[in-house]
């Protein structure tokens, strides 16, 4: 679950004060290195500089830190989503090309959420949009269900069950 950032106080440890989000710093350095494609010292210097400066400057935005359960499950989740995105493309391509529009059955679906972490819900909403025949549209005000639009649905419960089983159960393990 998420936690509020403590106000800056003098007894904060050096690490917490200057490197508030180590993972974000790592990601930023990695992004920068990939972006400039230059692995000489100059590239690293700028990468580390940005990696340290950006989390500090944007500290007020990151009021919570996601706790990631295990990185292995992140990798598995990424692979599953990548595979599903490819399948989604083929499926939607078939629907677009070979199904007359009148025979499509679009529907709004409410997906009740067990996921409580904000980051987890954001990832789930993005995943739902990228995968077969579903686009996430809104979150209920209390954060307990997700509004999803389906392109062609025969069985609403099956769609909900699939989203919950395939994505949400894995995200529950990632975002503790």
């Amino acid at each position: 679950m998420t936690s509020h950032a403590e106000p800056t106080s003098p007894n904060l440890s050096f690490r917490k004060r200057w490197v508030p989000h180590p993972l974000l710093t790592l990601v930023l350095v990695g992004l920068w290195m990939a972006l400039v494609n230059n692995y000489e010292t100059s590239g690293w210097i700028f990468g580390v500089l940005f990696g340290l400066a950006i989390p500090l400057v944007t500290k007020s935005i990151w009021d919570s830190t996601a706790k990631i359960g295990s990185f292995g499950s992140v990798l598995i989740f990424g692979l599953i989503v990548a595979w599903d995105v490819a399948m989604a493309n083929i499926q939607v391509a078939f629907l677009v090309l070979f199904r007359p529009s009148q025979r499509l059955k679009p529907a709004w679906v409410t997906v009740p959420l067990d996921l409580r972490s904000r980051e987890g819900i954001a990832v789930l909403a993005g995943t739902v949009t990228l995968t077969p025949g579903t686009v996430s549209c809104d979150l209920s005000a209390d954060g307990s269900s997700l509004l999803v639009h389906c392109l062609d649905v025969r069985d609403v419960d099956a769609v909900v069950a699939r989203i919950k089983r395939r994505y949400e159960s894995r995200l529950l393990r990632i975002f503790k």
Partner: protein
Amino acid sequence: MSPIADYTIAGFIFLGTAFAIVGSIGLVKLPDLMTRLHSPTKATTLGVGALLVASMIFFYMKNGKLAINELLITLFLFLTAPVAAHFIARAYMHLNCEAAEDLPRPSKDCEWSTYQRSYNCDDQTRAPH
């Protein structure tokens, strides 16, 4: 460059353009905004993805160096496509009153976040359940 690389690159470019054009056909053919939203969020991501894979192979064969920039483009595309679709869908729901009436309610005493006014999100979404 070997002919195998040439054919692989050509294959990926063909695949990419095929998906891109299917996405565009969907945009024209599907009946209303919500169904139209499905086709660019999906078909186009794989279309551009395949083109970028072709670009990666081409530059690897040409310079002998792996170009990671293409991976970043794919990553950013995957991050931005759902966000854009999400905002378009919300704008549609709010501009189109009939669409809003068709929406299912999330639960008895609660509304969808953009319909419920003066809601203190910090107090409720983060309360322990």
